[in-house]
């Protein structure tokens, strides 16, 4: 029989951090959010592009149930399809070959050509085909890099610009990151880098024996070496968007064959 009392007693061994330290974090986030809203409001006043006002208002801490974004996509034109509904009992949708439209936030979406048998997780945040996962998201104020991808995996924000993130990626320990080069993807400009963690890297001392990837703390993932990733860090009309093509355990040739998927992306306003 399960001994729940024994598990309850574990509570006595848990250290309670001071609430004041959490309050400081809360205040910092509040200030960052206000600053972002201020900047975005200014950009909107200057006529700065598509859907910018919605970006700063995105509140990922909201405790209301997350709406299925596929539900809004019913009238995509020109043969572009909405992602299908998730398979029963899961958050994964199985996708036939075609061009699909995926919302990024209230004001921005992207379209992408997906091969047959792609699985779409979390409303298209992850699009997995074979062993390769395409991850596309708005990289907001919380987006950052781990203090140490192996031993201190807490993600710290790096700053709001494409260059802030590219610079932080280049400084990361554990990863081998190529020099950034200018790139255009889907109508947006930015920087492109390739990152890898070699098979020989000993992750046995890492938290959960995994190496943490940069990302938004709420969506970041990690994996065991070897890792190979292609990263497009883009400025889409003032919104920083990161497109990652990630693979744990596959070769550069496999990733090369899949690059057409990432290159088929175009960014569009979300309706």
């Amino acid at each position, binding site marked *: *029989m*399960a*001994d*729940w009392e*024994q*598990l*309850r007693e*574990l*509570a*006595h*061994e*848990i250290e*309670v*951090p001071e*609430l004041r330290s*959490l*309050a400081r*974090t*809360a205040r910092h*986030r*509040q200030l960052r959010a206000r600053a972002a809203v201020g900047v975005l409001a200014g950009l909107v006043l200057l006529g700065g592009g598509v859907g910018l006002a919605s970006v700063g208002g995105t509140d990922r*801490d909201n*405790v209301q*149930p997350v709406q299925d974004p596929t539900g809004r996509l019913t009238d995509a034109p020109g043969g572009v399809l909405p992602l299908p509904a998730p398979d029963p009992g899961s*958050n994964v949708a199985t996708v036939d070959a075609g061009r699909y439209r995926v919302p990024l936030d209230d004001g921005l979406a992207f379209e992408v050509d997906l091969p047959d048998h792609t699985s779409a*997780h*979390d409303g298209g945040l*992850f699009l*997995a085909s*074979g*062993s*390769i*996962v395409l991850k596309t998201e708005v990289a907001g104020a919380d987006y950052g890099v781990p203090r140490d991808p192996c031993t201190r995996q807490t993600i710290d924000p790096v700053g709001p610009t494409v260059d802030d993130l590219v610079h932080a990626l280049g400084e990361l320990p554990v990863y081998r990151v190529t020099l950034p080069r200018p790139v255009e993807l889907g109508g947006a400009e930015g920087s492109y880098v390739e990152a890898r963690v070699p098979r020989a890297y000993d992750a046995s001392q890492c*938290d*959960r*024996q995994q190496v943490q990837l940069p990302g938004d703390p*709420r*969506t*970041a*993932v*990690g*994996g*065991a070496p070897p890792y190979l990733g292609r990263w497009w860090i883009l400025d889409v009309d003032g919104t920083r968007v990161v497109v990652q093509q990630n*693979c*744990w*355990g*596959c070769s550069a040739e496999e990733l090369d064959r899949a690059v057409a998927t990432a290159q088929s992306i175009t960014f569009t306003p979300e309706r």
Partner: protein
Amino acid sequence: MDGGRDVEDLDALYAASYRRLVVQMYAICGDLADAEDAVQEAFITALRKRRTLRSVHNPEAWIRTVALRRLHGGWRHLAVVRRHQATQREPEPAVGVGPEHVALVTALGLLDPGQREVVVLHHLGDLSVAEIADQLGIPVGTVKSRLSRGRERLGELLTEREEPSHG
């Protein structure tokens, strides 16, 4: 509104509930650090949304829901990574806690995530079936079936552990 009173209320809630929420999240996710992160993030959210928190009937349940959502996100993303890793790895054992805790948490880790959540909230969080249904936003019947199957499977797993095969 009385800001000083708010602080006192949240202080009291934090002092009273932090540890038990961490244990509940630990039983659900199997990683003490993730559990602590989830609960701390939930309290940070509470600090940022005090107005919302004031209006809810059960603040501890609200904070648990936020912590659970954070765990759900972590699972989903980890699951994607695991699904697409070339080499499947066994679940990692819990660290930093004694073996008597690890046995139960390891067995819980082998349950279906939906069953695990319901079993933990019922047996460790002392929530009724109706309360679980309300907090997770799922039908009462689903809670009952998950609880029944989860308990049955957990019993099997713990029995297997106590009586290892000699074959």
